């Protein structure tokens, strides 16, 4: 696999922002109550992510280190405002209303600022574009999967199409606590797949070392034992 493809696909599985990095939980729980909202939220975030990654990669040479965070936030919030206005004008009214406050809140979504700081500020234009698109796609995919499961179990519909398995399901799954439960099961399923894949190759599944608590720069907890 070439490194270009790797930059794109890492956001979808290996470093999926929601399911592996556990970033952006708030919009995930709030907007994944049905599949259409989840998809719309994912696409809006992807747009912001790609644009902000591009611009931040472009200006990375002239932004002084000391004020880089405010600069990134200004860039991100600009694109969020642009997205908000365009969705207000052209997206289906029901979806715009359902996303509500979570659309402007993309500004403070950890994924967007996280990618700006960890990737776009250190890499070139094309790589940053791929990284943003991959991360956004992974976010959209995770959100939509959770959304489809929650919508099907809570209302018996998928993308508002009634599946005729049951009339009305478990209402709790349509609300925030149900979001946690479904997300937990999706995480478990993903870990299960990873472990099974590793076992087939005769290895033991380890999460990528950079996400291990031992490697977190913020704390030395557990750094001395085990190693």
């Amino acid at each position: 696999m070439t490194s270009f493809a790797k930059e794109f696909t890492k956001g979808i599985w290996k470093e999926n922002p929601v399911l592996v990095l556990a970033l952006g939980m708030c919009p995930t729980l709030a907007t994944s109550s049905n599949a259409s909202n989840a998809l719309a939220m994912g696409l809006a975030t992807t747009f912001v992510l790609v644009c902000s990654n591009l611009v931040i990669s472009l200006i990375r040479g002239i932004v002084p280190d000391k004020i880089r965070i405010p600069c990134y936030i200004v860039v991100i919030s600009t694109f969020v405002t642009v997205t908000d206005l365009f969705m207000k004008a052209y997206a289906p009214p029901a979806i715009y209303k359902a996303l509500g406050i979570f659309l402007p809140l993309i500004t403070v979504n950890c994924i967007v600022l996280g990618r700006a700081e960890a990737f776009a500020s250190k890499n070139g234009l094309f790589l940053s574009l791929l990284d943003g698109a991959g991360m956004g796609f992974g976010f959209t995919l995770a959100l939509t999967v959770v959304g489809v499961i929650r919508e099907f179990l809570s209302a018996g519909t998928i993308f508002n199409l009634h599946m005729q398995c049951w009339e009305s399901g478990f209402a709790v799954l349509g609300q925030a606590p149900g979001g946690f439960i479904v997300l937990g099961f999706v995480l478990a399923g993903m870990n299960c797949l990873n472990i099974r894949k590793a076992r087939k190759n005769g290895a033991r599944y380890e999460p990528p070392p950079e996400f291990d608590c031992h490697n977190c720069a913020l704390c030395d907890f557990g750094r001395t034992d085990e190693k």
Partner: protein
Amino acid sequence: MTDLRKKSGILYLSFALFLICAAAAAVMAFTALLTEKPIRQRQKSLVEENLKLVLPDFDAVKERKISGSDGTDSVLFLAEKDGKPAGKAVQTSTMNGYGGKIEALVSFDPANRVRRIVVISHNETPGIGTRVVERKAVRRLWDVLKGQKTEEGLPANEALDSYEGRTGDELSPGTVHFVSGATISSNAMLDLVRRAADILKEEESH
């Protein structure tokens, strides 16, 4: 050339931040300019579409804003066709919903009986309170697979439809449909329609 990233003089920092903010402001202003018209048009057409749902055929609408004593704003719509009155509708709200405010458009026939109700905004619990307020067209998997066409027009809602054909004085928990498990939402809806009927009565009396 010095590395701009390592600069830390206060003047350069301010200048860099100013430049980025100015560019951001320009982009946002341009977008706002671009979307201003479609957004306004859309808000206008939303009101019109809701009116079309509840009123019979009309070609002109007069609006009258009414501020209630408790701070809620209502709008009385008088629709006309060829210069003759074609129908009337009241847009009003109640704060008694399970999730707070419910806003709805209620239309009346010439004898001031409720004609049709469309809830514009609400915050009721999905799956419980929404059974009282939401009209949702359900497309079923087998119908789509069989190529059956979905029904056009306003989707039915048992609770909202039970108000039709009644005057404001006839509305009570005994005459309209209350959804079990959603008593608060049902009470709020009853309160809202009564309000609408009262507003209409008040307006027509002077």
